[in-house]
């Protein structure tokens, strides 16, 4: 019997479960010189907003023990230019595409979803609701069940058709599975867990926060135990909802942890900065591990750590 490495999120099917992470793969072009993008389960694009955005001032990053902080601030050209340039290029490469969108208001999410509804060649929409809501004192959408629901409902209402919605949540909440339940009932087909953890580094030379934006998002291996826990908790509460897991995955063993916790696919983010071919390494190592452990398919391993002792 051959091993079945395919997976699906909502209606979307993927040949393998290893994706890039939003914001960690440029436009795809930069990675394409290291391996063909068709090797990926999917390219997840960086979160795109309605309008062009300069992002935050520099310094935008600080290395931390086994991790890093970033405060890119969602720099990007806006949805129109993105759909005109980036998406066609990715399609021309034969890549599976998950488009990530981000808004500053519920209305932004509605606008973005309407822009996406007529676009072909996209496998799924990742809705990054871990961004500040300008209409609510800058509180992050996914920090509050009410605003989280509102953003996802706006997408659901406007997206039409079959495009699966993956809601991306922040771990910076008291009860992530409650937020997960809320966005699923609001129409999300699956969940992306986890976005970065809010952190800060103080520069002991200048005696001020290192990043121009003061706080930043912590990513990398340092947060992997938080990702595994969040995925485990949400999978326990919502076993039938597919999860795209991410957080500190650098090798096949790390990816396996997320899958055993309940992820049906895994995004690789920060590891790509240390190693442009990290995604390929994770993919081949994961497949070898699953086979070695006697699984016949990826699907059999999803959530396997939850079984009774």
């Amino acid at each position, binding site marked *: 019997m051959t091993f079945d490495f395919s997976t699906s999120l909502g209606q979307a099917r993927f040949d393998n479960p290893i994706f890039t992470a939003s*914001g*960690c*793969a*440029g436009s795809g*072009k*930069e*990675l394409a*010189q*290291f391996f063909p993008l068709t090797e990926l389960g999917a390219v997840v694009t*960086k979160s795109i907003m309605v*309008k*062009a*955005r*300069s*992002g*935050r*001032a*520099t*310094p*935008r*990053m*600080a*290395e931390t*023990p*086994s*991790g*890093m902080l*970033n405060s*890119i601030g969602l*720099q*990007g*050209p*806006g949805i129109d230019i993105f759909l005109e340039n980036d998406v066609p290029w990715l399609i021309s490469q034969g890549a599976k595409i998950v488009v990530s969108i981000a808004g500053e208001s519920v209305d932004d999410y509605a606008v973005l979803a309407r822009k996406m509804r007529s676009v072909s060649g996209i496998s799924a929409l990742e809705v990054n609701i871990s961004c500040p809501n300008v209409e609510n004192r800058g509180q992050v959408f996914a920090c509050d069940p009410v605003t989280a629901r509102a953003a996802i409902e706006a997408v659901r209402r406007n997206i039409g058709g079959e495009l699966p919605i993956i809601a991306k949540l922040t771990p910076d909440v008291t009860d992530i599975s409650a937020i997960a339940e809320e966005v699923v009932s609001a129409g999300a087909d699956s969940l992306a867990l986890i976005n970065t953890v809010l952190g800060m580094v103080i520069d002991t030379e200048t005696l001020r926060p290192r990043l*121009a934006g003061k706080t930043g998002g912590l990513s*990398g*291996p340092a947060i992997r135990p938080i990702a595994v826990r969040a995925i485990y908790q949400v999978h326990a509460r919502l076993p039938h909802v597919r999860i795209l897991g991410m957080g500190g995955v650098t090798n096949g063993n790390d990816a396996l942890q997320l899958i055993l916790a309940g992820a049906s696919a895994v995004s690789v983010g*920060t*590891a*790509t*900065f*240390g*190693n*442009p*071919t990290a995604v390929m390494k994770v993919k081949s190592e994961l497949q070898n591990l699953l086979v070695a452990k006697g699984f016949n398919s990826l699907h059999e391993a999803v959530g396997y750590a939850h079984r009774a002792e």
Partner: protein
Amino acid sequence: MNKINRNARQVSAQIVSNKKVGAYHHMVFNVGEIAALCKPGNFVAISVGGENSSMVLRRAFAIYRAVDRGAGNGLIELVVAPHGGGSRWLTSCGVDDVVDLIAPLGTAFGIPSEPVRALLVGGGYGSAPLFGLSEVLKARGCRVDMVLGASSAAKIYAPLEGKRSVSSLTITTDDGSAGVLGKVSDVLTDLIDSNSIDIVYSCGPMGMLAAITEIANAKGIMHQCAVEESMACGIGVCMTCVIPVRDSSGVIKMLRSCIDGPVMDGANVIWDSKRKIPEGTWGA
């Protein structure tokens, strides 16, 4: 905005030599074929700390010299200042140790088609890419003068080599321990005038590049500089290394210094932008 260095490859590079030179380490790596593809101004990105490293990001180093020996043999030389954890780890590696290295990355210095009079300005280890550049310029018939500045004498890299390879070498130090007491920018105007300089090439701290830009602008001459912004990936995928640059249509955009740089036209860079986005930047 689409300047990905198509030659970049990830290789396991063996350390061929590692020698302390003043405050720096001169290190030589066997990188195979890619040495032939490296141009002055390009840089490399190296994984640091080994198997169980807590340092997850690559470190960027300007290419000091790339030597193609043919038949797939090639060397890259770097000048590394032991500073924090990453560079200390690298400089403590021994001969025959193997590091994970990506090269060549980024843009290269533009080489004029005419034989012009060039002034090369380096701050600290920023002098590294200038020696290779000087060779290329001289091969094109250019006259090359050089200024090297640093905080103290030990931080002037390769003053002797500097002297041999250029028409004139001026040294400045903040403490006066070698050459002229002061900054490179203090001697620049005179050197541009006395040598009828057509173009300035520079590499060093951002403050120095800003000061050079001001002088070059005042003199109305070209200034190509290699910038240095904190880089997480070096290959264009993280967007941490941006600096504000005015494009030909006058719009300021946050460009990646690892892809649209490190070599940029100094006149286009908005220098006064530390910790803030310049007004009028696209998307601000």
